[in-house]
């Protein structure tokens, strides 16, 4: 704090101020700070800055909806226009969290209705959202503009209808990967005829038909529409008509790409894509018929993100397509492209920064295809800027990973999933410890890591020793003893999220992280060796943590099957269902 007092202006009666700036100036300046991490830092400087920051903040990001209550948020930040909330633990994506666990948005909306009546944006991830909540949102917040729902559940297309009907100023409606009750496509027709403000529309995830007539008219009259992602029911012919209406699109998600086209239709489609010179993102291409992929070529010049994870392409088809995408930075594919396809990636995409390879047949045992370590290595040679990878494969070697990170030392996100649990290096039969050792030693900027394969405590020794910037770690079927987890907890100073399943980590490991958990967002441990008593001890010693346990049906009384620990200023949950035990 500045101990010198600057001469105050006569109007000011704040004679004891230490800041050299009047509030208004400070607020103006701080208002330009956008990143929520920076804003957190700003608020810690001194009381004046804390106040200026809180008055000038318009967007709040809450990474765990139970870490704080809506009342506390509203008290601190009076001028919020945009809220981002995340709810359930990430492993709920993989069926590890029962339905009705919580993270219901409604209580938040009720508080926002009185404190933030001018709320404009709501972005939710893994929250439960009911139709009533959507209706409440639509009818209460007259200024509401942008709704983004990612991996949420609890609502149906009726809720979307309410949004379309009542939100007169809507600019963004983004419905992604949700567990939603699709009762029909009538919701789209609820946008009024004089409604023209839409800029983002994503309903790729919905399965029933919308009225194409309504969609076409909507797209035509929304001249500012930039992102359009339609669902599988939109045919190629319909797509062509939409593109004719909206050549200004920058992001496009197509419907199915396999209708039978006449020569004339093909030509028209090609021409439509030719007019879309502003496309930087392309996705959809569901069940793409390779024969029609060339219609895309004219639009691919400026593509930076190509999402082919719904199109089971073979290597040759991918190679031909990539020839036309010289500026690609992000690529998502299915492993049907195989190593050969990834070689093409290495050859054609020198600017590539992100690669995600998803398995086309994840549950099939007898698959002889898919990608191997060779494909990944090939990409690493051709794409030195690669820093984000999500890679599903069935075999990997320590040597390959060492080569990969030597070629690409800038990894920030390294998520490797060798699909058979506990799979060793298939050439040497050794654990994959050295692979991840190489990753953490070489990639000093690593923020997120997911490990797999046969791993001993050595992997975690490496992680604790070298991964000093690591924030998120996902572990499954790995490790040999408590020591492994202890290494991570004591070594990774920036760790915020740790999620563990099916590992031999027990009470000693859990309790070694007591103070650590207060500096983290959350810890998840399921199917490990943790007992109820240890969890109770944790809860008792750390009152500012919420320690929640969910037990499996046939488990022993003393076992804590699923443990979720997170810091909170809101105290224990008041809405926990009976199967969530708060200790």
């Amino acid at each position: 704090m500045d101990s010198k007092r600057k001469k105050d202006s006569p109007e000011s009666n704040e004679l004891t101020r230490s800041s050299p700036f009047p509030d208004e100036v400070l607020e103006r300046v701080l208002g330009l700070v956008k990143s929520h991490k920076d804003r957190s830092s700003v608020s810690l400087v001194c009381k004046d800055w804390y106040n200026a920051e809180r008055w000038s903040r318009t967007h709040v990001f809450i990474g765990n909806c139970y870490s704080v209550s809506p009342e506390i948020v509203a008290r601190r930040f009076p001028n919020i226009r945009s809220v981002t909330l995340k709810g359930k633990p990430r492993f709920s994506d993989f069926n590890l969290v029962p339905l009705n666990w919580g993270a219901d948005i409604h209580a938040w909306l009720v508080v926002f209705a009185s404190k933030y009546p001018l709320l404009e944006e709501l972005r939710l991830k893994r929250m439960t959202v009911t139709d009533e909540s959507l209706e409440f949102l639509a009818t209460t917040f007259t200024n509401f503009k942008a709704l983004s729902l990612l991996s949420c559940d609890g609502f149906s297309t009726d809720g979307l209808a309410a949004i379309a009907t009542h939100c007169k100023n809507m600019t963004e409606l983004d419905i992604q990967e949700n567990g939603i009750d699709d009762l029909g496509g009538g919701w789209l027709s609820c946008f009024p005829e004089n409604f023209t403000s839409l800029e983002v529309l994503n309903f790729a995830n919905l399965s029933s038909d919308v009225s194409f007539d309504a969609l076409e008219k909507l797209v035509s009259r929304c001249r500012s529409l930039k992102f359009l992602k339609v669902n599988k029911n939109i045919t190629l012919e319909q797509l062509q008509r939409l593109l004719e209406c909206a050549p200004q699109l920058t992001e496009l998600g197509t419907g199915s790409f396999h209708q039978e086209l006449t020569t004339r239709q093909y030509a028209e489609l090609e021409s439509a894509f030719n007019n879309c010179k502003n496309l930087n993102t392309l996705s959809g291409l569901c069940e793409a018929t390779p024969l029609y992929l060339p219609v895309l070529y004219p639009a691919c010049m400026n593509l930076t993100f190509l999402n082919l994870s719904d199109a089971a392409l073979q290597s040759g088809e991918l190679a031909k397509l990539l020839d036309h995408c010289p500026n690609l930075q992000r690529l998502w594919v299915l492993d049907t492209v195989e190593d050969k396809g990834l070689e093409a990636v290495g050859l054609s995409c020198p600017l590539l920064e992100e690669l995600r390879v998803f398995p086309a047949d994840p549950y099939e045992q007898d698959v002889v295809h898919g990608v191997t370590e060779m494909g990944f290595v090939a990409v690493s040679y051709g794409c030195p800027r690669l820093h984000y990878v999500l890679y599903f494969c069935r075999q990997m070697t320590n040597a390959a990973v060492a080569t990969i990170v030597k070629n690409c030392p800038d990894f920030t996100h390294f998520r490797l999933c060798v699909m058979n649990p506990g799979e060793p290096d298939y050439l040497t039969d050794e654990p994959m410890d050295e692979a991840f050792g190489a990753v953490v030693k070489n990639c000093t900027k690593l923020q997120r890591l997911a490990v797999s394969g046969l791993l001993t405590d050595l992997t975690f020794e490496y992680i604790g020793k070298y991964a000093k910037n690591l924030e998120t770690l996902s572990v499954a079927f790995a490790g040999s003893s408590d020591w492994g987890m202890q290494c991570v907890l004591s070594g990774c100073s920036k760790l915020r999220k740790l999620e563990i399943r099916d590992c031999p980590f027990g009470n000693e490991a859990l309790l070694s992280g007591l103070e650590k958990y207060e500096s983290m967002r959350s810890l998840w441990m399921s199917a490990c060796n943790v007992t109820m008593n240890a969890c109770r001890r944790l809860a008792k010693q750390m009152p500012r943590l919420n320690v929640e346990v969910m037990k499996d049906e046939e488990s022993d009384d003393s076992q804590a099957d699923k443990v979720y620990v997170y810091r909170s200023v809101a105290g224990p949950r008041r809405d926990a269902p009976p199967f969530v035990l708060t200790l």
Partner: protein
Amino acid sequence: MISGRSNKKRGFIEAFELPPQTLPLLLWNDHPNDDDDDDDRKGVENSSFIAKKNDDGYCIVGWPPIKFRRKKICSHNRDDNDRTVLHNGSARAGVGGGVNPNSKYVKVKMVGVGIARKIDLSRHHSYQTLTNTLINMFGKCQQDAQSFKLAYQDREGDWLLAGDVPWRTFIQSVERLKILRIGG
């Protein structure tokens, strides 16, 4: 028909050594996550995790870690059984857990009953639970069960009596089930 075992006619209950009291029914339409962790926990009960090649395939819930939506796309090209599963899954309300991605639905026909049923074998880990579910599915009670036997058709097309091989072998090779009357 039933290979090499026609002289060993056993009752349902006798064949699978069901205890006299009724076992709790597994709810196989709701709460898809409740019985999930059983299989894979066996691997981690020891303090040092010894990796075993899982020759039964992936009977592990939530593994590989692929999001719900993506599972639907990936399974799109699979056979009849799975397509039915997908159809059921997408019609279900509020799907957070939704369709078990490791479902193994097989047809079950009971002699004398016109309509075949389907059962998700991935929800069962023993012959006991399977037979109990089947008993209830076809509206029979424990006593009636004595007069039936369970047969299955394996990948080679042979019909075998269920219960003679370990559960894990059974589940890998079973393609369809049939409930037959004993002595008939």
